[in-house]
């Protein structure tokens, strides 16, 4: 069986290289469209919001409040601006993991997606460190001993790798197990039996991994921009 990322149709050819619309790309577009529609709907409703919240406004205010409190409790004071960015990342990963429920191939089961997310976190970790600590950022590589410089650099480089492989491995593992189960069952049984597995591998693991990716990125940023 092939669990790889399949090409769906040809997009264009460039210098003899064919660029295809893959399953990952299609699922990413669907996830992006859903998120955009939600964002636009909320933005349009924003002008009709009142002082006393009701219905939709209640839910949105609760979400924003949870996000702000969570950012403050994980990263401390002075990082409030990161809440919105990480909420966006969290929403994207969560919807990507859940897109397996509607039969799409989850975009996070492709190494390219998770690597892009991990590289974003990596850049954010070091740019925040440079901005907050200035020269002290370079000095932090020499602590506690100048002899440990190569170890410190290795440690920094391993962070994005472990971030990206953790998400990729968990989602792809669940995807493979579910595909094997679907392949094993006769057609009539495919509608009921795998639901329990979907509950665990998509809903539980998907939410957990989205949460862990954001929390670990936040903790890394906070660690790298504090003088020790």
């Amino acid at each position, binding site marked *: 069986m092939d669990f790889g990322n399949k090409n769906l149709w040809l997009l264009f050819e460039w210098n003899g290289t064919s660029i295809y619309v893959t399953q990952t790309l299609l699922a990413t577009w669907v996830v992006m469209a859903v998120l955009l529609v939600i964002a636009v709907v909320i933005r349009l409703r924003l002008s009709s919001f009142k002082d006393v919240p009701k219905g939709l406004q209640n839910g949105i205010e609760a979400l924003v409040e949870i996000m702000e409190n969570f950012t403050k409790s994980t990263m401390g004071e002075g990082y409030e601006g990161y809440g919105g960015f990480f909420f966006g990342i969290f929403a994207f990963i969560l919807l990507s993991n859940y897109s397996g429920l509607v039969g799409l191939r989850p975009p996070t089961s492709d190494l390219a997606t998770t690597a892009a997310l991990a590289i974003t976190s990596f850049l954010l970790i070091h740019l925040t460190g440079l901005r907050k600590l200035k020269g002290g950022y370079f000095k932090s590589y020499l602590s506690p001993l100048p002899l440990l410089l190569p170890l410190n650099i290795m440690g920094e480089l391993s962070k994005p790798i*472990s971030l990206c492989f953790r998400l990729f491995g*968990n989602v792809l593992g669940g995807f493979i197990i579910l595909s094997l189960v679907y392949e094993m069952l006769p057609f009539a049984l495919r509608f009921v039996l795998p639901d329990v597995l979907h509950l665990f591998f998509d809903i539980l693991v998907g939410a957990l991994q989205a*949460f*862990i990716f954001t929390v670990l990125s936040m*903790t890394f940023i906070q660690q790298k921009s504090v003088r020790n």
Partner: protein
Amino acid sequence: MDPKAFILGCSAIGAGLASLSGLGSGLGQGIAAGKAAEAVGRQPEARGAIMSTMLIGAAVAETCSVYGLIIAMILLMANPLVALV
């Protein structure tokens, strides 16, 4: 014997062995969950903080088994050794 069949068979055994890396992280996550249960029992009001710390710890403990899974998948699906024959 066909060398390619031999390499593929050995790769399948290797993939099975690589998935044994789940042993260590399973133990580690079990210990983490047990300690978290103890901590909640001792201090029920700190439940939220204990839960999120435990989840992060469990995720970090899981990393090595995910590496094992990736090695198993490389051996099964994108085997670099077959090209050597």
